[in-house]
């Protein structure tokens, strides 16, 4: 590197309209990003589009679904024009049902111990390594972590998984379900995910003149400069569209907070 030149990390271009601009080019390769959002905020669509854009660029992608059966997920997502079922059929996007994975690993039980957690990490890493996955989505890490009773074990699980996936050059989005996306809210259900993740994208709703608008905000992203402004999300048939929120909206927000 020449003296004075600025080193920039290689990016995983998400291909999501507006998100790469917010992230100044994309997510740094190998990052583990927590996409934390309230229900209906577009987390699953965002995660799936992230994979579709990767698949269109010829990358191997994997989606682990824990919140809903894969059949239901695919039925819902195929309504979007950006999604093509052939990507799943041809193996570009590999959709794994967590319940099936649990059953195959003998993990169909109420809670996981240390051995179970290690088995799960090994299985996910095996899959990523064997088929050369470069984009991974786990939807949701909250549902998965419900089975891990100790906070320490959740921390170990996420840290070890993130570290191994980073070593394999896999950019991961961990979807997290939260009940509130306000400034004072936690961006994870267990309080440990946000500390371990390389990046945090918060998704939620704001009320504007009687309308509930979806928003997205990049709170943290290691390895890149990024905008921290709230952006409005629209879930269109063509995919997720992000546009900066108008200033007057932010003013109204502030006014609401101070009770004006």
């Amino acid at each position, binding site marked *: 590197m020449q003296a004075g030149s600025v080193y920039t990390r290689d990016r995983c271009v998400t291909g999501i309209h507006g998100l790469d601009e917010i992230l100044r080019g994309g997510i740094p390769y190998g990052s583990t990003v927590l996409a934390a959002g309230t229900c209906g905020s577009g987390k699953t669509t965002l995660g799936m589009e992230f994979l579709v854009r990767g698949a269109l660029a010829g990358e191997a992608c994997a989606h682990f679904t824990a919140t809903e*059966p*894969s*059949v239901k997920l695919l039925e819902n997502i195929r309504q979007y024009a950006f999604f093509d079922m052939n990507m799943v059929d041809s*193996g570009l996007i*590999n*959709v*794994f*049902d967590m*319940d*099936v*994975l*649990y*059953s*195959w*690993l*003998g993990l*169909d039980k109420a809670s996981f111990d240390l051995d179970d957690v290690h*088995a799960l990490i*090994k*299985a996910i890493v*095996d*899959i990523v390594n*064997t*088929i050369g996955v470069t984009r991974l989505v786990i939807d949701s890490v909250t549902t998965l972590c419900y089975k891990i009773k100790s906070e320490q074990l959740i921390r170990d699980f996420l840290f070890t998984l993130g570290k191994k996936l980073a070593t394999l050059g896999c950019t991961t989005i961990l979807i997290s379900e939260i009940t509130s996306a306000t400034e004072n809210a936690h961006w994870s259900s267990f309080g440990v995910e946000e500390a371990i993740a390389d990046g945090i994208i918060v998704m939620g709703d704001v009320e504007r003149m009687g309308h509930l608008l979806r928003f997205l905000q990049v709170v943290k992203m290691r390895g890149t400069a990024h905008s921290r402004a709230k952006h409005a999300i629209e879930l269109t048939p063509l995919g997720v569209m992000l546009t900066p929120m108008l200033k007057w909206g932010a003013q109204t927000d502030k006014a609401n907070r101070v009770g004006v």
Partner: protein
Amino acid sequence: MARKIEFDAEDEEFFGKVGSFGVPKFDNEMHGGVPRGFTMVAFTDTGSGSELFAKQFSSPAEESENTLYISTNEGQQEIVRIFQKYDWPLDINVRTIGEEYNSTVLERELLASRYRLEGFQLDDIQRLAQTRFVDDNNQDYLTEVTNEIMALGPYFRAVVDSLDFFLQREDPARVVAMVRMLAAHAQLNRGLLLISVSTNGLDPSVKQELSSIADMVLSFQVRTIGTDFETSMIVSKFRNAPENLKILVFRVTPEEGITPETVERIA
């Protein structure tokens, strides 16, 4: 209110009021055999001959299609070998739960441990990515066995050898409830039901419950005398006929299987 069953007069005459133990000398000692409708619980020591007794009890098989032998430890082949050896009928219904468990649940567990130790191969991953539903292999053997016995008609003969399998895998309260249900079915249908359970590690409260449900409680014991073993069957409960309580010392002969010793040992 319990359903009333009309019994055929011919059947009543054919089956009689008591059923054979399958051991004629035991029948003689016990005033003809086991009263129809009785549930017997046999508490067993390891090596006391209870497995052979369980098979011998099913051997009279008055109606082979109404006779059911459920084994949780032995395989079909072993059971057939013993029945052939003693020339007992081979046309009774036999269910080998242990064998079924090994071929379904254990096989699955073995595969799971292979995945956990060796990881996934490419073809495993491809299959996993195409599998959308979990195989429902979780068989409820307790319910199945209960239903199978409950489906037997009047004057049935059924053996469950042994209850240990269920007590190790299920909530003991559920197992006791199943025994209670089966005992009621046996009483209603004048059936004969023998259930064996090992005394090793058996919870005293479960033992107490099983004893109270049973019409007849048997204990199979083995002890050493000098360099010899002595096996005995103790009848410690006989509902409404305490005069029948007995200690019957027995041995196993190649011709008759379990046979009470009629000559007193000289120690």
